[in-house]
């Protein structure tokens, strides 16, 4: 907090800068772009990952076939190092002749798609592995939540002849609310802090072409450790902290128990 009001390049003395760092931040178009990117990660990432993981958990809960093996499969990405994974996905996304996806497209004569070197496709392309990696954890939590719902409710519903969809919306989802609140807050914070995937998948030009994938955390890292502008980095960190605080409080408020 104090450093955010100072000028410091790690080497020299710290000098008082007043609101200068915050002014610079306010007037910097890159900061606003980064700000927007951060929220795109959040707004796309959280709902998509929750819906997919709930869908998988809901259906997996009913399967008994090779349960342990399947569990291993979906939990594996979560245990893998984000850095290693980012580099593998980076390879998938490469243009012809090495990229997995583009080679497949080329096989069918479809023109290649620029995944990472594009101002529009790069952010979703980076988000995909981040969502995929988090699924395992969310599925486990969802399954635990689903298991915790007493079977007697379902039996009562079956006796009353309630449809499957109605059971899902009237019993399963409402009773899963604490689980959902936990996961929403947890994954939101995760997406607001996204760094590893972005940094490693666009390491030549960190933050993607024309900053199209740069999240706030990466911008902070660059201000601090490549530009050595500690004051500016601290100012941005204060902003990130406030965002995290507000988003979490807002979500808790929305999803509170009435």
């Amino acid at each position, binding site marked *: 907090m104090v450093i955010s009001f100072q*000028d410091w*390049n*790690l*080497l*020299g*003395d710290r000098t008082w800068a007043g609101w200068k760092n915050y002014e610079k931040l306010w007037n910097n178009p890159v900061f606003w772009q980064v700000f927007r990117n951060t929220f795109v990660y959040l707004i796309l990432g959280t709902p998509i990952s929750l819906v997919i993981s709930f869908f998988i958990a809901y259906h997996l809960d009913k399967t008994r076939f090779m349960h342990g093996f399947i569990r291993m499969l979906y939990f594996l990405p979560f245990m893998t190092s984000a850095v290693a994974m980012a580099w593998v996905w*980076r*390879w998938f996304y*490469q*243009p*012809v*002749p*090495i990229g997995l996806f*583009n080679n497949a497209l*080329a096989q069918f*004569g*479809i*023109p*290649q798609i*620029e995944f*990472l*070197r*594009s*101002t529009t496709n790069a952010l979703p392309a980076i988000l995909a592995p981040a969502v995929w990696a988090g699924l395992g954890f969310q599925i486990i939590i969802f399954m635990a939540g689903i298991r915790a719902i007493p079977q007697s409710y379902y039996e009562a519903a079956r006796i009353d002849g309630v449809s499957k969809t109605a059971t899902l919306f009237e019993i399963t989802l409402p009773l899963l609310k604490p689980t959902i609140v936990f996961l929403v807050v947890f994954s939101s914070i995760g997406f607001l802090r996204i760094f590893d995937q972005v940094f490693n998948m666009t390491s*030549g*030009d960190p933050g993607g*072409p*024309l900053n199209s994938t740069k999240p706030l955390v990466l911008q902070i890292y*660059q201000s601090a*450790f*490549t*530009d*050595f502008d500690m004051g500016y980095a601290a100012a941005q960190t204060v902003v990130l902290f406030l965002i995290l605080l507000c988003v979490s409080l807002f979500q808790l408020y929305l999803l509170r128990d009435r």
Partner: protein
Amino acid sequence: MKFTKMKALVFATATSTTALFSTAAHAVEIEYWQYFFGARVTAMEQLIENFEAVNPDITVTMTHFPYADYRTKVAAAIPAGEGPDVVQLFYGWLNDYKAASLIQPLPADSFDADTIDAEFFPMVSAMREGENYWALPTAVRSLALFYNTRLFDDAGIDGPPETLDEMLEIGAQLTKRDGAGNITQAGLTMGMTAQDHHWFREGLVRQFGGEPYLNDYTTVNYNTPEGVSAMEFYVGLGEENGIGAVGFMDEPQAAFKAGRAGMHIDGSFRIGSLNKTRGLKWAVTELPATGEGMRSNYSSYWVNAITTKAEDEKYDAAVKFMQYVTSDEAMQIWLDVVGELPAKPSVGLTEANSNDATYGPFIRGLAYANTTKFVNESAQRKVLIDAVERVKLQGMSVADSLAIAAAAEQELLDAFYTSK
């Protein structure tokens, strides 16, 4: 029984420790810091060994860190009276280190500024201020054109290009595309993320008749008709002439290593890793000249400096050590072990070195090289990366994009120089 053994051991240890300390009392121990890079560490170990053989009363301890932590550690250690007496730093950081009083000038009696000016390659003069030099390199780096001899032979091309036009011609012959028009083999690798931004700044802009910076690198000057034609030429490599593509094989050096690119512009520090690539046959030539034969190159270097921590006998020892690491002998060792070029013509331009098939083109390049005085290399590189991306991804005209880039870079320079 056991007890006596133990006692003997304790005594033995105690006496040997005293013995150690008694020799240390006569000797001076200085510390040297550099960042970790395998070959550099090996070379420095060799230099230290040679230095200690001549100066038995001085011990040099080397400490190295991962590059990422380097600056933080140096900054934290020296003011606390810890850390190095002699430190290695990138030439672009000198101003910061000076301003923070982490380093002190080299003494004028052992490092006479005029003698250094006469003996070293001219770009080293960036380290001079008044009658003092602040730091000196052991080695310098420059750019050259690597080419894949196997691909050249397959295409029936006799030799590497001498001029930019020849480069385009050869590049076109080497470029291969699949049915959908995607490049599968590039004539020339492209990417401002690698060394191309240096090639553009100090190479192409000058070759097209421009002057990239004015007023001792405080004013950006590539936003001129000459600069625009240089950028048009560069962007054109990927478009109308189509001999390469940004992002092909992820990174330029990866494409070249994989044998998927005919030509590749890179620094002398790449030699080591290319030598380790199995099945790759390559050679080096000087950067292509203009039709009139004008060449221009970029060079950069790491320097060694004495820190403000070194005082009294440590200072004297540090001066001696600095003299040794900037000597001809040290430079030759550095070239042989690391592959970085000697900072003095007297070592670099020897018959053997300048005619060396691998190092020769780089060493000859030093004669017409310029060193950009970066204030923040990665931010300034980003400016040029974005300039190309705006043209490629957003369809902006080269002139407009370069104007934005020049303004952005000027802002970086201004911010730096006004805060000093």
